[in-house]
Protein backbone atom coordinates (compact mmCIF):
# COMPACT_ATOMS: atom_id res chain seq x y z
CA UNK A 1 0.00 0.00 0.00
CA UNK A 2 1.75 3.13 -1.18
CA UNK A 3 -0.98 5.60 -0.27
CA UNK A 4 -0.38 6.71 3.27
CA UNK A 5 -3.25 7.40 5.61
CA UNK A 6 -4.39 11.01 5.58
CA UNK A 7 -3.17 11.97 2.12
CA UNK A 8 -5.93 13.59 0.15
CA UNK A 9 -3.76 14.80 -2.72
CA UNK A 10 -5.03 14.71 -6.30
CA UNK A 11 -5.39 11.71 -8.56
CA UNK A 12 -2.29 10.54 -10.45
CA UNK A 13 -1.17 12.92 -13.20
CA UNK A 14 -2.04 10.50 -16.02
CA UNK A 15 -5.63 10.17 -14.83
CA UNK A 16 -6.00 13.93 -14.67
CA UNK A 17 -4.68 14.29 -18.21
CA UNK A 18 -7.14 11.68 -19.47
CA UNK A 19 -9.97 13.65 -17.90
CA UNK A 20 -8.88 16.86 -19.57
CA UNK A 21 -8.50 15.19 -22.97
CA UNK A 22 -11.91 13.58 -22.70
CA UNK A 23 -13.58 16.83 -21.75
CA UNK A 24 -11.85 18.49 -24.69
CA UNK A 25 -13.14 15.85 -27.10
CA UNK A 26 -16.69 16.29 -25.89
CA UNK A 27 -16.47 20.05 -26.28
CA UNK A 28 -15.07 19.56 -29.78
CA UNK A 29 -18.04 17.39 -30.74
CA UNK A 30 -20.38 20.10 -29.55
CA UNK A 31 -18.49 22.80 -31.43
CA UNK A 32 -18.59 20.91 -34.75
CA UNK A 33 -22.37 21.15 -34.83
CA UNK A 34 -22.56 24.63 -33.42
CA UNK A 35 -19.82 26.20 -35.57
CA UNK A 36 -21.21 24.62 -38.75
CA UNK A 37 -24.59 26.20 -38.05
CA UNK A 38 -23.03 29.61 -37.39
CA UNK A 39 -20.89 29.46 -40.55
CA UNK A 40 -23.93 28.46 -42.56
CA UNK A 41 -26.05 31.29 -41.22
CA UNK A 42 -23.28 33.87 -41.65
CA UNK A 43 -22.61 32.68 -45.20
CA UNK A 44 -26.27 32.81 -46.16
CA UNK A 45 -26.72 36.19 -44.51
CA UNK A 46 -23.68 37.53 -46.37
CA UNK A 47 -25.11 36.47 -49.69
CA UNK A 48 -28.75 37.14 -49.08
CA UNK A 49 -29.16 40.16 -46.81
CA UNK A 50 -28.40 42.51 -49.67
CA UNK A 51 -31.34 41.13 -51.64
CA UNK A 52 -33.74 41.09 -48.75
CA UNK A 53 -36.28 43.87 -49.02
CA UNK A 54 -40.00 44.40 -48.80
CA UNK A 55 -40.31 44.26 -52.57
CA UNK A 56 -38.49 40.89 -52.54
CA UNK A 57 -41.23 39.53 -50.32
CA UNK A 58 -44.12 41.09 -52.23
CA UNK A 59 -42.91 40.39 -55.79
CA UNK A 60 -43.71 37.26 -57.71
CA UNK A 61 -40.97 35.01 -59.10
CA UNK A 62 -39.61 36.26 -62.39
CA UNK A 63 -37.04 35.26 -64.95
CA UNK A 64 -35.41 38.64 -64.42
CA UNK A 65 -33.38 38.41 -61.19
CA UNK A 66 -33.79 42.09 -60.45
CA UNK A 67 -37.59 41.80 -60.38
CA UNK A 68 -37.92 38.35 -58.82
CA UNK A 69 -39.53 37.88 -55.39
CA UNK A 70 -41.10 35.23 -53.23
CA UNK A 71 -44.72 36.22 -52.76
CA UNK A 72 -46.30 33.12 -54.29
CA UNK A 73 -43.89 30.61 -52.67
CA UNK A 74 -44.33 32.29 -49.28
CA UNK A 75 -48.12 32.28 -49.59
CA UNK A 76 -47.95 28.67 -50.80
CA UNK A 77 -45.88 27.68 -47.78
CA UNK A 78 -48.29 29.39 -45.38
CA UNK A 79 -51.29 27.65 -46.98
CA UNK A 80 -49.48 24.31 -46.84
CA UNK A 81 -48.84 24.81 -43.13
CA UNK A 82 -52.48 25.72 -42.49
CA UNK A 83 -53.73 22.62 -44.32
CA UNK A 84 -51.22 20.44 -42.52
CA UNK A 85 -52.19 21.84 -39.12
CA UNK A 86 -55.93 21.51 -39.74
CA UNK A 87 -55.53 17.91 -40.93
CA UNK A 88 -52.90 16.54 -38.54
CA UNK A 89 -53.82 18.04 -35.19
CA UNK A 90 -57.34 16.55 -34.84
CA UNK A 91 -56.33 13.20 -36.35
CA UNK A 92 -53.07 13.04 -34.42
CA UNK A 93 -54.67 13.93 -31.09
CA UNK A 94 -57.49 11.47 -31.73
CA UNK A 95 -55.08 8.66 -32.48
CA UNK A 96 -52.97 9.54 -29.45
CA UNK A 97 -56.02 9.60 -27.17
CA UNK A 98 -57.09 6.20 -28.43
CA UNK A 99 -53.66 4.70 -27.89
CA UNK A 100 -53.19 6.22 -24.44
CA UNK A 101 -56.67 6.03 -22.96
CA UNK A 102 -58.51 3.21 -24.71
CA UNK A 103 -56.10 0.76 -26.33
CA UNK A 104 -55.40 -2.39 -24.37
CA UNK A 105 -51.66 -2.97 -24.58
CA UNK A 106 -52.17 -6.68 -24.24
CA UNK A 107 -53.85 -6.91 -27.64
CA UNK A 108 -51.45 -7.68 -30.47
CA UNK A 109 -53.12 -5.29 -32.91
CA UNK A 110 -52.65 -2.32 -30.61
CA UNK A 111 -48.98 -3.14 -30.18
CA UNK A 112 -48.68 -3.50 -33.96
CA UNK A 113 -50.18 -0.05 -34.47
CA UNK A 114 -47.76 1.42 -31.94
CA UNK A 115 -44.70 -0.10 -33.62
CA UNK A 116 -46.01 1.04 -36.99
CA UNK A 117 -46.33 4.63 -35.87
CA UNK A 118 -42.78 4.63 -34.51
CA UNK A 119 -41.55 3.32 -37.86
CA UNK A 120 -43.67 5.70 -39.93
CA UNK A 121 -41.96 8.63 -38.22
CA UNK A 122 -38.67 7.39 -39.68
CA UNK A 123 -39.84 6.75 -43.25
CA UNK A 124 -37.93 8.96 -45.75
CA UNK A 125 -40.05 11.82 -47.02
CA UNK A 126 -39.49 10.86 -50.65
CA UNK A 127 -41.47 7.70 -49.97
CA UNK A 128 -44.42 9.82 -48.88
CA UNK A 129 -43.93 11.75 -52.11
CA UNK A 130 -44.28 8.56 -54.14
CA UNK A 131 -47.34 7.58 -52.15
CA UNK A 132 -48.82 11.03 -52.73
CA UNK A 133 -48.11 10.92 -56.44
CA UNK A 134 -49.67 7.48 -56.83
CA UNK A 135 -52.73 7.97 -54.62
CA UNK A 136 -53.47 11.66 -54.23
CA UNK A 137 -52.23 13.32 -57.42
CA UNK A 138 -53.08 10.56 -59.87
CA UNK A 139 -54.64 7.27 -58.85
CA UNK A 140 -57.84 6.87 -56.87
CA UNK A 141 -58.05 10.35 -55.38
CA UNK A 142 -56.81 12.20 -58.45
CA UNK A 143 -56.47 15.69 -57.02
CA UNK A 144 -53.91 16.72 -59.62
CA UNK A 145 -50.91 18.84 -58.74
CA UNK A 146 -53.01 20.81 -56.32
CA UNK A 147 -52.33 22.71 -53.12
CA UNK A 148 -54.55 20.23 -51.29
CA UNK A 149 -52.49 17.27 -52.48
CA UNK A 150 -49.30 18.94 -51.24
CA UNK A 151 -50.90 19.74 -47.88
CA UNK A 152 -52.20 16.20 -47.45
CA UNK A 153 -48.80 14.67 -48.23
CA UNK A 154 -47.11 16.89 -45.67
CA UNK A 155 -49.89 15.96 -43.24
CA UNK A 156 -49.21 12.26 -43.69
CA UNK A 157 -45.52 12.94 -43.29
CA UNK A 158 -45.79 14.67 -39.92
CA UNK A 159 -48.81 12.79 -38.57
CA UNK A 160 -46.65 10.19 -36.76
CA UNK A 161 -44.67 12.99 -35.13
CA UNK A 162 -47.86 14.70 -33.94
CA UNK A 163 -49.18 11.38 -32.60
CA UNK A 164 -45.98 10.63 -30.70
CA UNK A 165 -45.78 14.16 -29.24
CA UNK A 166 -49.46 14.11 -28.25
CA UNK A 167 -49.11 10.72 -26.60
CA UNK A 168 -46.26 12.05 -24.50
CA UNK A 169 -48.30 15.08 -23.49
CA UNK A 170 -51.29 12.91 -22.59
CA UNK A 171 -49.15 10.45 -20.68
CA UNK A 172 -47.67 13.33 -18.67
CA UNK A 173 -51.07 13.95 -17.07
CA UNK A 174 -50.77 11.96 -13.85
CA UNK A 175 -53.10 9.01 -13.21
CA UNK A 176 -54.24 10.70 -9.99
CA UNK A 177 -56.08 13.34 -12.07
CA UNK A 178 -57.91 10.61 -13.98
CA UNK A 179 -58.78 8.77 -10.76
CA UNK A 180 -59.93 12.00 -9.13
CA UNK A 181 -62.30 12.71 -12.02
CA UNK A 182 -63.66 9.17 -12.22
CA UNK A 183 -64.14 8.98 -8.44
CA UNK A 184 -66.53 11.93 -8.71
CA UNK A 185 -68.80 10.01 -11.06
CA UNK A 186 -67.45 11.35 -14.33
CA UNK A 187 -67.67 9.05 -17.32
CA UNK A 188 -64.48 8.16 -19.14
CA UNK A 189 -65.26 10.61 -21.93
CA UNK A 190 -66.02 13.45 -19.44
CA UNK A 191 -62.74 12.68 -17.68
CA UNK A 192 -60.82 12.87 -20.97
CA UNK A 193 -62.68 15.85 -22.36
CA UNK A 194 -62.61 18.03 -19.24
CA UNK A 195 -59.42 17.03 -17.46
CA UNK A 196 -56.92 15.06 -19.54
CA UNK A 197 -57.26 16.99 -22.78
CA UNK A 198 -57.11 20.53 -21.31
CA UNK A 199 -54.14 19.53 -19.18
CA UNK A 200 -52.25 18.15 -22.16
CA UNK A 201 -53.01 20.92 -24.67
CA UNK A 202 -49.78 22.88 -24.07
CA UNK A 203 -47.72 19.77 -24.77
CA UNK A 204 -49.80 18.89 -27.80
CA UNK A 205 -49.46 22.42 -29.19
CA UNK A 206 -45.71 22.44 -28.68
CA UNK A 207 -45.32 19.06 -30.38
CA UNK A 208 -47.56 20.08 -33.26
CA UNK A 209 -45.66 23.28 -33.94
CA UNK A 210 -42.36 21.39 -33.94
CA UNK A 211 -43.90 18.89 -36.37
CA UNK A 212 -44.99 21.75 -38.63
CA UNK A 213 -41.49 23.17 -38.54
CA UNK A 214 -40.31 19.89 -39.94
CA UNK A 215 -42.94 20.05 -42.69
CA UNK A 216 -42.07 23.64 -43.65
CA UNK A 217 -38.66 22.64 -44.96
CA UNK A 218 -39.74 19.52 -46.83
CA UNK A 219 -38.86 19.71 -50.49
CA UNK A 220 -38.54 16.19 -51.84
CA UNK A 221 -42.18 15.04 -51.65
CA UNK A 222 -43.43 18.32 -53.11
CA UNK A 223 -41.01 18.16 -56.03
CA UNK A 224 -42.01 14.57 -56.64
CA UNK A 225 -45.69 15.41 -56.92
CA UNK A 226 -44.71 18.18 -59.28
CA UNK A 227 -45.33 21.35 -57.34
CA UNK A 228 -44.22 23.30 -60.36
CA UNK A 229 -41.32 25.58 -59.92
CA UNK A 230 -42.43 28.73 -61.70
CA UNK A 231 -45.75 29.97 -60.33
CA UNK A 232 -46.22 33.71 -60.70
CA UNK A 233 -49.60 33.75 -58.91
CA UNK A 234 -50.99 32.90 -55.47
CA UNK A 235 -53.17 29.83 -55.17
CA UNK A 236 -56.76 30.94 -54.75
CA UNK A 237 -58.33 27.57 -54.03
CA UNK A 238 -57.35 24.16 -52.73
CA UNK A 239 -57.21 22.73 -56.23
CA UNK A 240 -54.87 25.40 -57.64
CA UNK A 241 -51.30 24.76 -58.60
CA UNK A 242 -48.81 26.01 -56.07
CA UNK A 243 -45.20 26.40 -55.15
CA UNK A 244 -43.46 26.70 -51.80
CA UNK A 245 -40.36 28.33 -50.39
CA UNK A 246 -38.08 25.27 -50.39
CA UNK A 247 -39.01 24.57 -54.00
CA UNK A 248 -38.31 28.14 -55.03
CA UNK A 249 -34.95 27.96 -53.28
CA UNK A 250 -34.18 24.67 -55.02
CA UNK A 251 -35.14 26.21 -58.35
CA UNK A 252 -32.99 29.29 -57.91
CA UNK A 253 -29.91 27.38 -56.82
CA UNK A 254 -30.04 25.26 -59.97
CA UNK A 255 -29.93 28.32 -62.22
CA UNK A 256 -26.53 29.15 -63.73
CA UNK A 257 -26.70 32.92 -63.08
CA UNK A 258 -24.93 34.10 -59.92
CA UNK A 259 -27.75 36.59 -59.28
CA UNK A 260 -30.24 33.79 -58.60
CA UNK A 261 -27.89 32.22 -56.03
CA UNK A 262 -28.15 35.44 -54.03
CA UNK A 263 -31.93 35.38 -54.34
CA UNK A 264 -31.90 31.81 -53.05
CA UNK A 265 -29.87 32.95 -50.05
CA UNK A 266 -32.39 35.70 -49.34
CA UNK A 267 -35.26 33.18 -49.56
CA UNK A 268 -33.37 30.89 -47.19
CA UNK A 269 -33.21 33.74 -44.67
CA UNK A 270 -36.98 34.13 -44.87
CA UNK A 271 -37.52 30.36 -44.48
CA UNK A 272 -35.11 30.17 -41.53
CA UNK A 273 -36.83 33.19 -39.99
CA UNK A 274 -40.21 31.46 -40.22
CA UNK A 275 -38.78 28.25 -38.81
CA UNK A 276 -37.04 29.91 -35.88
CA UNK A 277 -40.15 31.95 -35.08
CA UNK A 278 -42.24 28.78 -34.94
CA UNK A 279 -39.71 27.00 -32.76
CA UNK A 280 -39.38 29.98 -30.46
CA UNK A 281 -43.15 30.10 -30.09
CA UNK A 282 -43.21 26.38 -29.29
CA UNK A 283 -40.53 26.81 -26.62
CA UNK A 284 -42.32 29.82 -25.15
CA UNK A 285 -45.56 27.85 -25.05
CA UNK A 286 -43.85 24.95 -23.32
CA UNK A 287 -42.26 27.15 -20.67
CA UNK A 288 -45.35 29.24 -20.16
CA UNK A 289 -47.63 26.30 -19.41
CA UNK A 290 -45.15 23.87 -17.96
CA UNK A 291 -46.67 22.14 -14.95
CA UNK A 292 -45.26 20.55 -11.89
CA UNK A 293 -47.72 17.93 -10.74
Amino acid at each position, binding site marked *: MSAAHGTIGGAPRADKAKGVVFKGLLLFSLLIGFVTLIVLIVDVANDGLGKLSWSFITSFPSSLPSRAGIQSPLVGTIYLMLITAVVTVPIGVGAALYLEEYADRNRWYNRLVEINIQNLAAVPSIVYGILGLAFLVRGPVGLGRALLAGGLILSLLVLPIVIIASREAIRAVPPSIR*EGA*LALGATKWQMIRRQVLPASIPGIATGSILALSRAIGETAPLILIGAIVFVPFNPSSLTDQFTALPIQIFNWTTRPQEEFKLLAAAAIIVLLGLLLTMNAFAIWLRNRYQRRW
Partner: protein
Amino acid sequence: MLKEQATQSERPRTHIEARSEQPRYPGRAEPIFEVHEVGVSYNGTPAVRNITLDIGRNRITALIGPSGCGKSTLIRCFNRMNDLIPSATVDGSILYHGQDLYGAGVDPVEVRKLIGMVFQKPNPFPKSIYDNIAFGPRVIGMKGDMDAIVERALTRAALWDEVKDRLKDNAYQLSGGQQQRLCIARCLAVEPDVILMDEPCSALDPIATAKIEDLMLELKDRYSIVIVTHNMQQAARVSDMTAVLMPEVREGDVTIGHIVEYAQTDKIFTNPDNKRTEEYVTGRVG
Protein backbone atom coordinates in the same frame (compact mmCIF):
# COMPACT_ATOMS: atom_id res chain seq x y z
CA MET B 1 -81.66 2.30 -9.16
CA LEU B 2 -78.87 3.00 -6.76
CA LYS B 3 -79.74 6.65 -6.73
CA GLU B 4 -83.29 6.05 -5.53
CA GLN B 5 -82.15 3.95 -2.66
CA ALA B 6 -79.73 6.59 -1.53
CA THR B 7 -82.45 9.21 -1.55
CA GLN B 8 -84.63 7.01 0.61
CA SER B 9 -81.77 6.47 2.94
CA GLU B 10 -81.26 10.16 3.44
CA ARG B 11 -84.34 10.51 5.61
CA PRO B 12 -83.08 9.03 8.88
CA ARG B 13 -80.05 11.29 8.74
CA THR B 14 -81.90 13.85 10.86
CA HIS B 15 -82.29 11.51 13.85
CA ILE B 16 -78.79 11.95 15.11
CA GLU B 17 -79.72 11.77 18.81
CA ALA B 18 -81.48 8.48 18.44
CA ARG B 19 -78.56 6.94 16.67
CA SER B 20 -75.87 8.03 19.05
CA GLU B 21 -77.41 5.85 21.74
CA GLN B 22 -76.98 2.75 19.64
CA PRO B 23 -74.17 0.41 20.53
CA ARG B 24 -71.26 0.75 18.19
CA TYR B 25 -70.82 -2.75 17.00
CA PRO B 26 -71.82 -3.82 13.54
CA GLY B 27 -74.66 -6.13 14.49
CA ARG B 28 -76.74 -3.18 15.66
CA ALA B 29 -75.77 -0.27 13.42
CA GLU B 30 -77.68 -0.29 10.17
CA PRO B 31 -75.18 -1.64 7.63
CA ILE B 32 -74.38 0.42 4.57
CA PHE B 33 -72.04 -2.18 3.13
CA GLU B 34 -72.37 -5.89 3.73
CA VAL B 35 -69.13 -7.44 2.57
CA HIS B 36 -69.24 -11.18 2.14
CA GLU B 37 -66.26 -13.42 1.32
CA VAL B 38 -64.62 -10.78 -0.85
CA GLY B 39 -61.28 -11.47 -2.46
CA VAL B 40 -59.29 -9.43 -4.98
CA SER B 41 -56.59 -10.76 -7.24
CA TYR B 42 -54.28 -9.14 -9.74
CA ASN B 43 -53.47 -11.31 -12.77
CA GLY B 44 -54.77 -14.28 -10.83
CA THR B 45 -52.52 -13.61 -7.83
CA PRO B 46 -54.70 -12.97 -4.79
CA ALA B 47 -54.04 -9.75 -2.83
CA VAL B 48 -56.79 -10.00 -0.22
CA ARG B 49 -59.17 -12.84 0.49
CA ASN B 50 -61.98 -13.92 2.73
CA ILE B 51 -63.08 -10.43 3.69
CA THR B 52 -66.39 -10.46 5.50
CA LEU B 53 -67.61 -7.46 7.46
CA ASP B 54 -70.52 -5.05 7.78
CA ILE B 55 -69.87 -1.34 7.62
CA GLY B 56 -72.30 0.78 9.61
CA ARG B 57 -74.16 3.89 8.53
CA ASN B 58 -72.89 7.22 9.85
CA ARG B 59 -69.94 5.46 11.37
CA ILE B 60 -66.28 6.00 10.74
CA THR B 61 -64.82 2.61 9.97
CA ALA B 62 -61.04 2.33 9.94
CA LEU B 63 -59.06 -0.29 8.04
CA ILE B 64 -55.63 -0.64 9.62
CA GLY B 65 -52.72 -2.97 9.19
CA PRO B 66 -49.09 -3.13 8.09
CA SER B 67 -48.08 -2.29 4.51
CA GLY B 68 -48.90 -4.96 1.99
CA CYS B 69 -51.97 -6.18 3.87
CA GLY B 70 -54.32 -5.00 1.10
CA LYS B 71 -56.18 -2.19 2.87
CA SER B 72 -56.06 0.06 -0.18
CA THR B 73 -57.03 -2.81 -2.43
CA LEU B 74 -60.02 -3.48 -0.23
CA ILE B 75 -61.25 0.12 0.01
CA ARG B 76 -61.08 0.43 -3.77
CA CYS B 77 -63.68 -2.32 -4.05
CA PHE B 78 -66.31 -0.11 -2.44
CA ASN B 79 -66.50 2.39 -5.31
CA ARG B 80 -65.36 -0.05 -7.99
CA MET B 81 -62.07 1.75 -8.54
CA ASN B 82 -60.52 -1.67 -9.03
CA ASP B 83 -62.44 -1.84 -12.31
CA LEU B 84 -59.90 0.60 -13.71
CA ILE B 85 -57.13 -1.96 -13.37
CA PRO B 86 -57.76 -4.46 -16.16
CA SER B 87 -55.88 -7.27 -14.41
CA ALA B 88 -57.88 -6.98 -11.17
CA THR B 89 -60.73 -9.34 -10.43
CA VAL B 90 -63.08 -9.08 -7.47
CA ASP B 91 -65.07 -12.02 -6.20
CA GLY B 92 -67.49 -12.47 -3.34
CA SER B 93 -70.24 -9.92 -2.88
CA ILE B 94 -70.58 -6.40 -1.54
CA LEU B 95 -74.11 -5.26 -0.82
CA TYR B 96 -74.67 -1.51 -0.74
CA HIS B 97 -78.02 -0.76 0.92
CA GLY B 98 -78.85 -4.37 0.15
CA GLN B 99 -78.02 -4.13 -3.54
CA ASP B 100 -75.09 -6.00 -5.06
CA LEU B 101 -72.44 -3.45 -6.06
CA TYR B 102 -70.99 -5.91 -8.54
CA GLY B 103 -74.33 -7.13 -9.82
CA ALA B 104 -75.22 -7.21 -13.49
CA GLY B 105 -76.56 -3.88 -14.70
CA VAL B 106 -74.82 -1.80 -12.04
CA ASP B 107 -72.93 1.05 -13.71
CA PRO B 108 -69.65 1.86 -11.91
CA VAL B 109 -70.14 5.52 -12.89
CA GLU B 110 -73.42 5.59 -10.95
CA VAL B 111 -71.73 3.87 -8.01
CA ARG B 112 -69.04 6.53 -7.86
CA LYS B 113 -71.59 9.33 -7.79
CA LEU B 114 -72.85 7.97 -4.48
CA ILE B 115 -69.61 6.66 -3.04
CA GLY B 116 -66.94 9.33 -3.14
CA MET B 117 -63.23 8.89 -2.62
CA VAL B 118 -60.37 10.95 -1.19
CA PHE B 119 -56.91 9.78 -2.17
CA GLN B 120 -53.60 9.37 -0.42
CA LYS B 121 -51.91 12.29 -2.11
CA PRO B 122 -54.02 15.44 -2.61
CA ASN B 123 -54.95 15.41 -6.30
CA PRO B 124 -56.65 18.71 -7.13
CA PHE B 125 -57.32 19.34 -10.80
CA PRO B 126 -55.00 21.91 -12.43
CA LYS B 127 -57.83 24.44 -12.40
CA SER B 128 -59.22 27.14 -10.15
CA ILE B 129 -60.51 26.33 -6.66
CA TYR B 130 -64.03 27.06 -7.90
CA ASP B 131 -63.72 24.79 -10.94
CA ASN B 132 -62.31 21.99 -8.81
CA ILE B 133 -65.52 21.95 -6.79
CA ALA B 134 -67.82 22.62 -9.73
CA PHE B 135 -66.40 19.80 -11.86
CA GLY B 136 -68.31 17.01 -10.10
CA PRO B 137 -71.72 18.73 -9.97
CA ARG B 138 -71.33 19.70 -13.63
CA VAL B 139 -70.47 16.24 -14.92
CA ILE B 140 -73.25 14.53 -13.02
CA GLY B 141 -75.67 17.24 -14.15
CA MET B 142 -76.68 18.63 -10.77
CA LYS B 143 -79.28 21.36 -10.98
CA GLY B 144 -79.16 24.54 -8.95
CA ASP B 145 -77.04 27.59 -8.37
CA MET B 146 -73.43 26.55 -8.87
CA ASP B 147 -72.09 29.35 -6.65
CA ALA B 148 -74.26 28.06 -3.81
CA ILE B 149 -73.18 24.47 -4.41
CA VAL B 150 -69.53 25.51 -4.30
CA GLU B 151 -69.97 27.55 -1.16
CA ARG B 152 -71.86 24.77 0.61
CA ALA B 153 -69.22 22.16 -0.25
CA LEU B 154 -66.34 24.39 0.85
CA THR B 155 -68.15 25.30 4.05
CA ARG B 156 -68.77 21.67 4.92
CA ALA B 157 -65.11 20.92 4.34
CA ALA B 158 -64.18 23.83 6.67
CA LEU B 159 -62.30 25.56 3.87
CA TRP B 160 -64.68 28.36 2.88
CA ASP B 161 -63.25 31.05 5.16
CA GLU B 162 -59.73 30.38 3.93
CA VAL B 163 -60.50 30.52 0.23
CA LYS B 164 -63.65 32.63 -0.23
CA ASP B 165 -61.65 35.61 -1.52
CA ARG B 166 -59.54 33.58 -3.92
CA LEU B 167 -61.91 31.16 -5.60
CA LYS B 168 -60.41 31.94 -9.02
CA ASP B 169 -56.88 31.09 -7.90
CA ASN B 170 -55.31 27.89 -9.09
CA ALA B 171 -55.79 25.07 -6.62
CA TYR B 172 -52.07 24.34 -6.75
CA GLN B 173 -51.43 27.55 -4.82
CA LEU B 174 -53.06 26.05 -1.73
CA SER B 175 -51.02 24.28 0.93
CA GLY B 176 -51.01 20.49 1.04
CA GLY B 177 -53.56 20.36 3.87
CA GLN B 178 -55.82 22.86 2.13
CA GLN B 179 -55.53 20.87 -1.09
CA GLN B 180 -56.66 17.75 0.72
CA ARG B 181 -59.63 19.58 2.26
CA LEU B 182 -60.38 20.88 -1.23
CA CYS B 183 -60.45 17.27 -2.44
CA ILE B 184 -62.84 16.44 0.41
CA ALA B 185 -65.00 19.45 -0.53
CA ARG B 186 -64.93 18.34 -4.16
CA CYS B 187 -66.16 14.95 -3.06
CA LEU B 188 -68.92 16.48 -0.86
CA ALA B 189 -70.12 18.71 -3.71
CA VAL B 190 -71.72 15.77 -5.52
CA GLU B 191 -73.71 14.90 -2.35
CA PRO B 192 -72.41 11.38 -1.88
CA ASP B 193 -73.70 8.90 0.60
CA VAL B 194 -70.37 7.37 1.57
CA ILE B 195 -66.86 8.83 1.63
CA LEU B 196 -63.92 6.52 1.20
CA MET B 197 -60.57 7.89 2.38
CA ASP B 198 -57.40 6.11 1.38
CA GLU B 199 -54.72 7.29 3.83
CA PRO B 200 -55.89 10.89 3.48
CA CYS B 201 -53.33 12.34 5.87
CA SER B 202 -50.22 10.43 4.93
CA ALA B 203 -48.79 13.39 2.99
CA LEU B 204 -49.75 16.01 5.59
CA ASP B 205 -48.16 17.55 8.68
CA PRO B 206 -49.71 17.02 12.14
CA ILE B 207 -51.64 20.30 12.17
CA ALA B 208 -53.20 19.69 8.78
CA THR B 209 -53.91 16.12 9.88
CA ALA B 210 -55.72 17.34 12.99
CA LYS B 211 -57.93 19.59 10.86
CA ILE B 212 -58.89 16.70 8.61
CA GLU B 213 -59.64 14.50 11.63
CA ASP B 214 -61.90 17.19 13.14
CA LEU B 215 -63.59 17.47 9.79
CA MET B 216 -64.20 13.71 9.64
CA LEU B 217 -65.87 13.79 13.04
CA GLU B 218 -68.16 16.59 11.85
CA LEU B 219 -68.95 14.83 8.60
CA LYS B 220 -70.02 11.55 10.11
CA ASP B 221 -73.39 13.02 11.07
CA ARG B 222 -74.21 13.22 7.39
CA TYR B 223 -72.03 10.61 5.75
CA SER B 224 -70.68 7.15 6.34
CA ILE B 225 -66.89 7.16 6.21
CA VAL B 226 -64.44 4.36 5.56
CA ILE B 227 -60.82 5.27 6.14
CA VAL B 228 -57.64 3.39 5.40
CA THR B 229 -54.81 4.51 7.63
CA HIS B 230 -51.37 3.31 8.61
CA ASN B 231 -51.52 5.64 11.60
CA MET B 232 -52.95 3.70 14.53
CA GLN B 233 -53.41 6.80 16.68
CA GLN B 234 -55.51 8.26 13.90
CA ALA B 235 -57.72 5.19 13.84
CA ALA B 236 -58.01 5.36 17.62
CA ARG B 237 -58.90 9.06 17.56
CA VAL B 238 -61.53 9.15 14.86
CA SER B 239 -63.02 5.76 14.16
CA ASP B 240 -65.97 3.95 15.71
CA MET B 241 -65.09 0.56 14.29
CA THR B 242 -61.72 -0.82 13.35
CA ALA B 243 -60.83 -3.74 11.12
CA VAL B 244 -57.28 -5.05 11.42
CA LEU B 245 -55.86 -6.60 8.27
CA MET B 246 -52.75 -8.72 8.30
CA PRO B 247 -50.69 -10.09 5.45
CA GLU B 248 -50.30 -13.80 5.34
CA VAL B 249 -47.34 -15.13 3.41
CA ARG B 250 -47.87 -18.11 1.23
CA GLU B 251 -46.07 -19.67 -1.71
CA GLY B 252 -42.89 -17.64 -1.90
CA ASP B 253 -43.29 -13.88 -1.82
CA VAL B 254 -47.03 -13.70 -2.34
CA THR B 255 -48.77 -12.01 0.56
CA ILE B 256 -52.51 -12.20 0.94
CA GLY B 257 -54.28 -9.85 3.28
CA HIS B 258 -57.15 -10.92 5.46
CA ILE B 259 -59.03 -9.55 8.45
CA VAL B 260 -57.77 -10.82 11.78
CA GLU B 261 -60.13 -8.81 13.93
CA TYR B 262 -63.04 -6.42 13.48
CA ALA B 263 -64.59 -4.73 16.49
CA GLN B 264 -65.31 -1.42 18.15
CA THR B 265 -62.23 0.76 18.07
CA ASP B 266 -62.03 0.90 21.93
CA LYS B 267 -61.93 -2.84 22.09
CA ILE B 268 -59.28 -3.18 19.38
CA PHE B 269 -56.99 -0.78 21.19
CA THR B 270 -57.61 -1.82 24.79
CA ASN B 271 -58.65 -5.43 24.84
CA PRO B 272 -58.22 -7.15 21.48
CA ASP B 273 -59.11 -10.81 21.15
CA ASN B 274 -56.48 -11.61 18.61
CA LYS B 275 -52.84 -11.91 19.58
CA ARG B 276 -51.57 -10.43 16.30
CA THR B 277 -53.90 -7.45 16.74
CA GLU B 278 -52.49 -6.85 20.18
CA GLU B 279 -48.92 -7.08 18.96
CA TYR B 280 -49.71 -4.72 16.10
CA VAL B 281 -51.56 -2.02 18.05
CA THR B 282 -49.00 -2.02 20.82
CA GLY B 283 -46.25 -1.54 18.26
CA ARG B 284 -44.51 -4.83 18.69
CA VAL B 285 -44.94 -5.83 15.05
CA GLY B 286 -45.85 -4.15 11.79
